[in-house]
């Protein structure tokens, strides 16, 4: 196949979602020439995300307009080594994005910081519960970053996005109304919280009655007009209830497209190439460098090789891991021996939900925002004593009023038939009189949960698909059951007419029902090159001019939505590139 070699540039960024856009913006601002390679199309909010068509539940939520096209590339799944993996022929459990903005176009906007505990759980658990407390098969690790190091980057990303919320801890001073468990912040949220819904009021009252401290979920749904440091203006949220799976028509939901692209696309040093599907990275093992990136123009089939001094791998979790494997960079993880790093510690999330019904309720579920929620964190992280519980980690528990789009949102009481006049009657009766409370739970790494190349299935260009070997383990099942107990207790404190039995993620992982697009791991960060792919600056141990950004570097997954930490780490890593790496290219941490 003929390959067209392109004029070298300073930096190639693979994927132009949150991390790629942040890196591109920071590096062009530092004076470098940057090419952004994006497998999907250009998405322009003012043209693509407009009324009335953007409010089309069938097109966006059901037929998956903004998601990665699974006919081109998907992943395969099996529950255990020794089984044959089969492809996810349609995305269901999770919904990766494509196009400029990536999944940051169609996310809900739940913009969390991790708990300080979440950054270094292995160290914390060992200190609190003893050396043997973590089971051998639970291969959790530490980010190796301290709270005070990462906090300024959380702050910066929140201000980019105009996050709406209420601080619970500024400079060590605990503030009523915020999350009392959060790490100390340097400043209040850039915008005040969104308007709390009637469901939020009921959840808050019930949890306060039980002694908990509810707080508004930090939302990248701007509660008022806001202009960030890039000069981009966000509109005020219209509470339209169309965040997740949709683009935002008023630009209130922070996305790379709204917060960064206006400045980035205006910069002559940045060049965006859409429909550019990266095949592999050209790796010079002896020089410990990536010399170029090969990609295919998906419209013409033409293959290009783009030479670059620095390569930023900023794709989704699956893309980052896949490209490391197909490019032969680093040692693939082998669960039989525990050796190797690429593909290790793939994690997802656990969860539980309870539906409550109030005969005289009026919740107007269609008025909402993706991150309009009220939460408690008493059962999150290590905020509660885990001695004797048989699991580590926890859940953030709350109610979210994300919207009432009726194809997907049709709560009916337990025992209702699924069709016929009785179903119609129950749907009409309860649609406006019910809401769900949910627990989003951590998923800790397990020796047998990992990613590698599928030996059988291929993408549209003939390259191997990524194979997921994954199942919920004992820690996950116990954590979900514990969270479900808390949900039920809170629900019963609400004086609801009907409280459903908790729906838990238990049994085998199932690829069809949506759970969360919070996949993590595969190219994890760590202090030991034998068990990690990147160092604490997100620099590859094997190629010093390669930095990997995104949730693929998380050593395990917490209960929270990952984007806040993904963005903070992108700023953290690009700061290291600009202030350390460019001054003396080489390994920033001695192997």
């Amino acid at each position, binding site marked *: 196949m003929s390959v067209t070699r392109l004029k070298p540039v300073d930096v190639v960024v693979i994927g132009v979602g949150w991390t790629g856009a942040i890196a591109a913006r920071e590096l062009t601002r530092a004076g470098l020439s940057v090419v952004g390679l994006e497998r999907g199309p250009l998405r322009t909010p003012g043209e693509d995300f407009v009324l009335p068509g953007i409010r089309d539940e069938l097109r966006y939520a059901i037929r998956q307009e903004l*998601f990665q096209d699974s006919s081109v590339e998907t992943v395969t799944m099996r529950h255990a080594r020794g089984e044959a993996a*089969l492809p996810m022929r349609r995305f269901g459990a999770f919904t990766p994005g494509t196009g400029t903005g990536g999944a940051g176009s169609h996310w809900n906007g739940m913009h969390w910081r991790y708990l300080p505990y979440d950054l270094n759980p292995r160290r914390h658990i060992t200190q609190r519960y003893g050396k043997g407390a973590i089971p051998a098969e639970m291969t959790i690790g530490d980010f190796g970053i301290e709270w005070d190091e990462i906090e300024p980057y959380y702050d910066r990303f929140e201000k980019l996005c105009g996050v709406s919320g209420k601080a619970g801890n500024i400079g060590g001073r605990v503030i009523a109304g915020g999350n009392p468990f959060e790490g100390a912040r340097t400043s209040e949220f850039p915008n005040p919280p969104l308007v709390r819904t009637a469901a939020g009021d009921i959840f808050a009252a019930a949890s306060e009655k039980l002694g908990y401290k509810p707080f508004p979920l930090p939302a990248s749904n701007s509660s008022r007009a806001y202009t960030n440091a890039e000069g981009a203006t966000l509109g005020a949220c219209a509470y339209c209830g169309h965040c997740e799976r949709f683009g935002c028509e008023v630009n209130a939901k922070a996305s790379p497209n709204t917060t960064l692209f206006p400045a980035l696309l205006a910069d002559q040093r940045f060049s965006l190439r859409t429909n550019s599907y990266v095949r592999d990275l050209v790796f010079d093992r002896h020089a410990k460098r990536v010399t170029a990136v090969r990609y295919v123009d998906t419209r013409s089939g033409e293959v290009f090789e783009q030479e670059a001094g620095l390569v930023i791998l900023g794709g989704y979790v699956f893309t980052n891991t896949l490209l490391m494997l197909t490019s032969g960079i680093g040692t693939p993880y082998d669960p039989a021996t525990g050796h190797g790093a690429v593909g290790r510690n793939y994690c997802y999330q656990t*969860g539980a*939900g309870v539906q409550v019904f109030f005969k005289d309720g009026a919740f107007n579920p269609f008025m909402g925002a993706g991150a309009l929620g009220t939460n408690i964190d008493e059962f999150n992280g290590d905020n509660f004593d885990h001695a004797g519980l048989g699991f580590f980690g926890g859940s953030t528990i709350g109610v979210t009023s994300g919207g009432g789009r009726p194809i997907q949102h049709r709560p009916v009481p337990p025992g209702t038939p699924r069709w016929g006049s009785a179903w119609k009657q129950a749907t009409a009766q309860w649609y406006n009189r019910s809401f*769900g409370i949910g627990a989003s739970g951590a998923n800790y790494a397990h020796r047998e949960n990992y990613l590698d190349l599928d030996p059988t299935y291929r993408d549209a260009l003939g390259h191997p698909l990524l194979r997921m070997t994954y199942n919920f383990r004992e820690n996950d099942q116990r954590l979900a059951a514990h969270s479900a107990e808390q949900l039920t207790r809170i629900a019963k404190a609400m004086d609801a007419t009907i409280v459903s039995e908790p729906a838990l993620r238990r049994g*085998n992982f199932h690829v069809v029902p949506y759970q969360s697009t919070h996949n993590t791991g595969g190219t994890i960060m760590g202090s030991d090159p034998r068990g990690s792919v990147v160092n604490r600056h997100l620099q590859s141990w094997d190629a010093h001019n390669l930095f990997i950004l995104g949730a693929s570097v998380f050593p395990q997954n917490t209960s929270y939505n990952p984007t806040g930490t993904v963005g903070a780490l992108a700023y953290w890593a690009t700061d290291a590139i600009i202030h350390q790496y460019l001054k003396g290219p080489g390994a920033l941490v001695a192997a």
Partner: protein
Amino acid sequence: MAGGREADATGGVKRRELLSAAFVATATGALPPVAARAAAGPSAPPAETGPAARPQAFLTLSPAEAEFLTAAVDTLIPADALSPSASDLGVVVFIDRQLAGAWGGGARLYRSGPFVKGKPEHGYQLPLTPREYFAAGIAAVDLWARTGFGRPLAALDQPTREAALHRLERGEADLGELSPRDFFEALLAITIEGFLADPIYGGNRDKAGWKMVGYPGLPATYANAVVRAKGQPFHPAPKSIEDFL
């Protein structure tokens, strides 16, 4: 996201509800009852099409498929005081357009082999596009109905048709290579989509599905209402995408 959205619990059918549902369905058959129109109130315009209207031309459905789907969707969503029947709301037209379009042809569906029967947790694993799958499913159900009940689904009386769909739902039917449960789920899913998707797709005529649910549709700009109508019923007349053109 929080897991509450997934919590719609289902379970055994309450006998009383089933009996009342069967009674309504039997009493009205496949025709939209006068009662349903009357119950919709004086503000509701007359149904755009009814059994007396011109025959519907289809893009891809054969006459037999259209008859099957009309019978099936009207069993799943029968006419009653809450809404006209699914077919009177255009749900068969919706299905026809969906199957004739990109989705029906397999857009966004990974279609490389080998095709292996997996666990239920692997989801759909057949080599068929949605169009081909519905063709195969309809043919298989009709063959099973002929064998067990002596006639195709559309020719069964309403109680027998309900019983047949319950058996499919519970997996108590021999559809050869196809899983009766999976086909039932596909049929129910596309019926509900047709009932509740924006009317621009041909179903949910006169926004009757949205009216039944209490969903206001567009433009969905609630910055004021989220404060003003907090905790109070809020029922503006629903609007569709086409109402904004």
